[in-house]
């Protein structure tokens, strides 16, 4: 009885396509050529949007922007493994998730211009507005998932957060609720190894974030977040579990933030070019492209077609976004609640926002 081991846990790591583009055949999910190309298209569109958004920011045509460069694998791979009816609760660095789900690009641009209308998701798209307070969206996904159980819907909920987000109480309380209520929810931590200037090893003394899952009786796995297929496979498996009533999963996508934290940041203050260069070589598109080429799915021509198409879509979105009339000041008040209060009517009048 005395000092005995009562439980043992393993922490697993999944990679399917390695940095050189070689795939582990035994682990490769069953994806058709079309599906594989869909993933590629989403990654290219995400990257193209990201590049143009950064350019627009430099020209003052949008505000502060949070680049996703290097994280397209984690975002696209997870988003495309879900069903249409599933609900997504993102942080602010999931542009690739929005794009993979088919979110109107012009709305994304409006959002980054500081326009609330940017986060008005189309009626048939269950994607929640970006959450700015880090980690605070996690419990929303858990609650939605609990509601799915109550309503006996077959949807699942997915929430995204960063390595920084994993330090917040919201993470803990959310995972614990999800475990207790066996909620159909997937927790996707984009561990991009930085929270603004704080490196991952000073965010927590634990070596992985995945190993936290055991503390809630929830399965957890660390995935190579720069391997889009591994992320896809892990998410698909977690979704399957959730839909089968087996409860939540924590997926840690190990990736790297290649750009500054946002356009308001200067990462040279806290990290070296060499560090970034090392990760540049591991970024998700390089290996996935080689993989597709080796498989004979992608060639120069098709690649150009896909890239051009993406450019076209983003350019059209820029035009569309910039053609939108500025928001009406009265909207500040009008969308506060379902009905206007006496005070709000007085305000609208006093501010001369309406006659």
């Amino acid at each position: 009885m005395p000092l005995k081991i009562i439980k043992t846990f393993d922490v697993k790591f999944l990679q399917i396509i390695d940095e050189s583009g070689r795939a582990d055949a035994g682990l490769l999910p069953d994806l058709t050529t079309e599906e594989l190309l869909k993933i590629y298209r989403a990654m290219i569109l995400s990257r193209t949007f990201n590049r143009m958004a950064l350019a627009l920011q430099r020209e003052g045509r949008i505000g502060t922007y949070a680049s996703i460069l290097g994280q397209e694998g984690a975002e696209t791979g997870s988003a495309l493994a879900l069903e249409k009816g599933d609900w997504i609760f993102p942080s602010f660095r999931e542009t690739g998730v929005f794009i993979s789900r088919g979110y109107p690009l012009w709305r994304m641009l409006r959002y980054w211009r500081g326009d609330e209308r940017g986060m008005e998701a189309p009626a048939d798209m269950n994607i929640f507005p970006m959450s700015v307070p880090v980690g605070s969206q996690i419990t929303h996904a858990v609650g939605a998932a609990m509601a799915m159980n109550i309503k006996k819907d077959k949807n699942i909920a997915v929430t995204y957060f960063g390595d920084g987000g994993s330090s917040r109480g919201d993470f803990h309380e959310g995972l614990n609720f999800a475990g207790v209520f066996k909620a159909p929810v997937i927790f996707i931590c984009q561990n991009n190894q930085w929270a603004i200037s704080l490196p991952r090893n000073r965010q927590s003394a634990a070596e992985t974030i995945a190993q936290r899952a055991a503390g809630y009786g929830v399965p957890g796995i660390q995935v190579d977040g720069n391997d889009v297929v591994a992320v896809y496979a892990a998410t698909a498996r977690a979704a399957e579990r959730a839909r089968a009533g087996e409860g939540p999963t924590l997926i840690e996508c190990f990736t790297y933030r290649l750009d500054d934290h946002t356009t308001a940041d200067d990462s040279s203050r806290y990290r070296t070019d060499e560090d970034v260069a090392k990760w540049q070589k591991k970024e998700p598109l390089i290996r996935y492209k080689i993989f597709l080429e080796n498989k004979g799915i992608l060639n120069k021509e098709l690649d150009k077609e896909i890239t051009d198409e993406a450019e076209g879509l983003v350019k059209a979105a820029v035009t569309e976004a910039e053609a939108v009339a500025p928001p009406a000041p009265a909207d500040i008040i009008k969308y506060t609640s379902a009905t206007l209060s006496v005070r709000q009517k007085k305000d609208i009048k006093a501010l001369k926002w309406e006659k």
Partner: protein
Amino acid sequence: MGKITIVKAINQALAEEMARDEDVVLLGEDIGQDGGVFRVTDGLLEKFGPQRVMDTPLAELAIAGTAIGMAVYGLRPVAEIQFMGFTYGALEQVFSHASRIRSRSRGRFTCPMVIRTPYGIGIKAPELHSESAESLYCHMPGIKVVAPSTPYNAKGLLISAIRDDDMVLFMEPASIYRAIKAEVPTENYAIPLGKAAIMQEGDEITLVSWGAMLHKAMEASEGFDCEIIDLMTLKPFDEEAILESVRKTGRLVIVHEATKNCGLGAEIAALVAEEALFYLKAPVLRVAGPEAVTPMASLEDEYVPKVARIREALKDVMKY
């Protein structure tokens, strides 16, 4: 009809709304098997089952946060936080999310949820079991705040709160949970939010209060010609009712137990100083908690406004 307590009236409101609308669900600590530490949810687990009456782990942030997730998904969650002092851990969820989701998504997502919580001094419980923090919530646009004072309005207001399409904080006066018994219709009825009740008409002083303090105010008013207003909805409060009354009486006394500085009484006084200044015959007096945190049990009766203090204020304004 039948004479029942506030506890029972709230229980009725919950049971009726849950029977009427299956999207209404409850969550909170000890609300199921135990029926809530004040027994407000007594019997509801048996009636509606564990999927609609959810005993949660001990985590207020998550209670509020998951309620938000449920609400945006299409349920109408009614969360219980065991005491108002423990809502502080849920404030970020309320301030950064529940109050802003409609605005943030330009109406695509809404957050029809209720947080029920007992508030106020008077039950001689440990520290932080006696908070009266309404003004924190009243300051935040996008949410409503309600505080009933009788079994009748507790039931009707809670029903409206549950049906409201935005978040409502429902503050239950713990000190009179069982102190008052009154006739309450067994039928389902709603009392509109945003409207105050004139408890007594009068010509010389407008006396505004809510929740447990209302009863002290009423007691203190004896011998004075007071128009007594039970605010009931604290946010948005019934500005017209107050202004109209003050235009008639020219005197205003506000009674609340929260500390005076930046309390809700300040907003009421400021409104009058802006919109009905020249009707005022006397200074606007607030009878409220002193500048100190709510004390533990042995001094709590000293902290909370006493009837005598209210009478003094009424006398004071009558000097003008």
